[in-house]
C-alpha cells in the first residue's frame, strides 16, 4: 500500500503546476476562452514541449510510458486551473482509441502527431438519444469493398469543432442497442460529407454536432475490428472517467480553498462569517466530501488497469458516482457560502461550479453509474 508519489511523478506534478500557475491565471483563461475554438495553440505547443501530450503512450509508440497515476496528476492540475485545451479529447480519447485499437502504422503516424502537438482529435460517440450508453449507436457504417461509408449524426462532441481528426463510433451490424457490430472510424475533419457545427458549452469549452452523410473511410481509417469496437470504447471511457475524476478533484479542492478563504475574510455583523458555526460545519462537510472524492479518484487511477473488464467498469462507475455526489455538494455550497458574489461571472467560484456540473454529464452522470454499480459492482465482496 503506497499513496506517495515517486520522484518522477512529483517532478511532473511540479512542472505542470508551475507552468499553469505562471501562465493560466483567471484573466488569461478568460482570454483563451474567447479565442476561436476556445483554446490556445500556444499553450498546446507548450504542453508538447513539456512532454505531456505524449505522456500516456508507450515508448515504442512515441510516448513517454506514463500510466493512470501520471494522467491523474495532470488532470488534477488542469482542474485547478480550469484548463480549456483539448487534452481529454485528443490525448485520452483520441489517443486512447489509437493506442488500443490502432495498427502499427496508424499508431506510428498519429500518436507521434499527438505527442508533438500537431494534430488534435475528438471522439464522437453520443447521439441524440443514446444518453450515456456507448453501445447505443444508430450511425451506420456500410461496407463498400475495403472501405466503409458512414451516415448518421453525433451530438455534443467535445472539441469536435476544432479537431483535425474525428473518431466516430458507427454500426457495422446488429441493431441499435446491440453490443456487437460497432466499429471505430477515423475521419479527417475536412472529409467530404462531414459537416459540423460547434457551440461554446456552459463551462467555456466547445462541443459540436457532427453530421455524416456518405462519408467514405478507407482501410487506413478503420481502427481495429470493425465489429468489435465496443470493448475498446469502454476501456477508453474508463480511462477518461479516471481523468475526469482527477480533474474534478482539482476543481473541488480549489473551490473549497476559495470558499474557506472567503469565510475568513468576509465580514458581516462585524465578524468574519467563518465564525458562524453553521458555516464552519458546512465548510467541514465540503472538506469531507472532497477527501472522499480524492480517495475515489486515486482508486480509479490505481484500478484503471484491472484485467477483468466487468470489474474495471464497475470500479470506474463507483468512482464517478462519488465524484458526482461530492462535486454537486461542493459546487452548490461553494456558491451558497459566497452569497451574491458567488453568483457572478466575474468571480472564479461559479466557473468551478459550472465545470463540475458539466463533468457529471461526461461519460455518465452519478445516477447512470449508480445503476451500473448496483448491477455489476462487488465493492464489498460476499463473505
Amino acid at each position, binding site marked *: 500500500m503506497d499513496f506517495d508519489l515517486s520522484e518522477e511523478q512529483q517532478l511532473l506534478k511540479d512542472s505542470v503546476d508551475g507552468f499553469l500557475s505562471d501562465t493560466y491565471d483567471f484573466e488569461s483563461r478568460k482570454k483563451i476562452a474567447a479565442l476561436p475554438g476556445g483554446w490556445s495553440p500556444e499553450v498546446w505547443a507548450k504542453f508538447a514541449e513539456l512532454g505531456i501530450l505524449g505522456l500516456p503512450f508507450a515508448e515504442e509508440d512515441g510516448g513517454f510510458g506514463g500510466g493512470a497515476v501520471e494522467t491523474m496528476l495532470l488532470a488534477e492540475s488542469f482542474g485547478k486551473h480550469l484548463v480549456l485545451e483539448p487534452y481529454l479529447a485528443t490525448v485520452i480519447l483520441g489517443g486512447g482509441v489509437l493506442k488500443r485499437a490502432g495498427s502499427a502504422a496508424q499508431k506510428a503516424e498519429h500518436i507521434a502527431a499527438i505527442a508533438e502537438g500537431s494534430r488534435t482529435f475528438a471522439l464522437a460517440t*453520443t447521439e*441524440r*438519444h443514446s*444518453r*450515456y*450508453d456507448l453501445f*447505443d449507436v444508430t450511425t451506420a457504417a456500410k461496407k463498400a469493398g475495403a472501405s466503409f461509408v458512414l451516415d448518421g449524426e453525433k*451530438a*455534443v462532441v467535445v472539441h469536435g469543432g476544432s479537431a483535425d481528426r474525428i473518431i466516430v463510433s458507427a454500426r457495422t451490424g446488429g441493431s*441499435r*442497442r446491440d453490443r456487437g457490430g460497432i466499429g471505430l472510424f477515423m475521419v479527417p475533419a475536412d472529409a467530404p460529407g462531414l459537416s459540423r*457545427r*460547434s*457551440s*461554446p*458549452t*456552459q*463551462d467555456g469549452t466547445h*462541443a*459540436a*454536432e457532427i453530421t455524416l452523410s456518405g462519408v467514405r473511410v478507407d482501410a487506413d481509417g478503420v481502427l481495429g475490428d470493425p465489429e468489435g469496437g465496443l470493448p475498446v470504447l469502454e476501456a477508453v471511457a474508463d480511462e477518461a472517467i479516471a481523468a475526469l475524476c482527477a480533474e474534478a478533484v482539482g476543481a473541488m479542492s480549489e473551490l473549497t480553498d476559495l470558499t474557506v478563504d472567503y469565510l475568513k475574510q468576509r*465580514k*458581516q*455583523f*462585524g465578524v468574519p*462569517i467563518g465564525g*458562524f458555526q*453553521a*458555516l464552519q460545519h458546512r465548510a467541514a462537510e465540503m472538506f469531507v466530501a472532497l477527501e472522499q472524492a480524492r480517495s475515489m479518484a486515486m482508486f480509479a487511477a490505481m484500478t484503471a488497469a484491472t484485467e477483468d473488464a466487468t470489474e474495471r467498469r464497475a470500479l470506474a462507475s463507483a468512482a464517478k458516482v462519488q465524484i458526482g455526489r461530492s462535486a454537486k455538494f461542493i459546487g*452548490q455550497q461553494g*456558491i*451558497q457560502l459566497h*452569497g*451574491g458574489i*458567488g*453568483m*457572478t*461571472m*466575474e468571480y472564479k467560484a*461559479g*466557473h468551478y*461550479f*459550472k465545470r463540475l*456540473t*458539466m463533468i457529471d*454529464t*461526461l461519460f455518465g*452522470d452519478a*445516477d447512470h453509474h449508480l*445503476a451500473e454499480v448496483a448491477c455489476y459492482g462487488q465493492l464489498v465482496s460476499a463473505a
Partner: protein
Amino acid sequence: MELRFTDEEIAFRKEVRAFIDAKLPKALREKLAAGHHPTRDDIVFWQKTLNDKGWGVAHWPVPYGGTGWDAVKQYIFLEEMMMAPSPPPLAFGTSMVGPVIYTFGSEAQKKRFLPRIASLDDWWCQGFSEPGAGSDLAGLKTKAEKVGDHWVINGQKTWTTLGQYADWIFVLARTDASVKKQEGISFILVDMKTPGITVKPIQTIDGGHEVNEVFFDDVKVPLENLVGQENKGWDYAKFLLGNERTGIARVGISKQRIRKIKEMAAIEQRGGRPLIEDQRFREKIAEVEIELKALEITQLRVIAGEKKREKGKPDPASSVLKIKGSELQQATTELLMEVIGPHSAPFAPEEPGSNEPPIGPEWAQTIAPTYFNVRKVSIYGGSNEIQKNIIAKAVLGL
C-alpha cells in the same frame, strides 16, 4: 378541518384561468414555459393587462386599487399565474414599495406613486444591499445628509435586480451614524434620472444580466421623498421583507417545472426507452412532488391563519416557506438537468446579436442556465442560513 376549496373558490380559479387563456399570448406563454426570461416589455404588457381588468394589485387594500379578495383567492390567483406561466409581477413595486407607501407614506406619495405602480408606468427597483451589507443589512453605509431642502445621497448599492430598466429606486440610507445601526436608517424614494446615479451591469453565472451595481455620487433628492419618519427606515424594511408571504414559496413555479420535467422525460430516453418509464427516475420525481405537496399545505395553513394574525408581528411561517420553497425550486432544476443529460452542455448567450443558435435540441438551452441561476433563491431575500437563524432564535428560543 376541510381541505377542499369551496365551489366559489373553484369557480374563481376557472375565471382566472379563462382570463389568462384569453389574454396571455401563446407565444409569450411558450417562451416562458421554455425557461426564457420575460423582457421588460413582456412584464409591462402583462401588468397593464391585469391592471385594466382591476387585478394589477389584487392584494392591496381596496381604496388603493385592491380587489378585496381573501387570502385563499389571492393564493389561487398567484398560483394560476405561476403555472400558466405568465410574466411575474414586478415585486419591487407591487409587493415591496407599494405596501410600504400605502402603510407609512404621505398622502402626496400615495397619490403620486400608487397608481403608477399598479399600471407599471413606474418601474421600481430595490436599493437595499451593499457590497458590505448583505445578510447584515442594517450595517449599510450609503449616507443621506440633509442639505437645505434636499437629501444628498452618497454610496453604493449592489445586486439591484432589473435596475437597468428602473425609473425609481427605494433606498435604505444612513441618516444617523451616532446611534445603534438599526436606529439610524431612513427609507427614501429616488428618481433614477437624478444626476449622480450610475448603473453598472453585473453578469451572473448563467450569462444573464438581471442584477446591477448602482452608484450614488452627490445625488440630490427632495426632502419630501422620505417615507414615514426619519431614522425609522429599518422598521419599514422589516415590514417589507416580511410582507411577501403568499408568494414566497413559489409553489406554482415548482409545479409548473414538475410538469415540464414529466413532459420532457417522455421525450428523452434512458436505456432506449422514454425516461419517464424508468422506475428510479419516477421515484425521484415523486420525492419532490411529496415535499411540494407538504409545502403547499403548509402554505395554505399560513393563508388560512392570515385572518387571525396580528399584522406586523414577526412570524416564523415566512422562513419555513422560504427555506423549503427555495430548496424545491432548486430540486426541480436539478431534475431537469438529469432529464436532458449530456445535451445540457451547449451554451446560448442571451445577448441579442448572437443569431447562430447553439447546437442541440432547442428546449435544452435554458436548462443548465436555469439550474445555475436558481442557486440565487437560497441566497437572496434573506439567505437560507439567515432564515434558519430566525427560526432558531425567534421560534425555538435558542
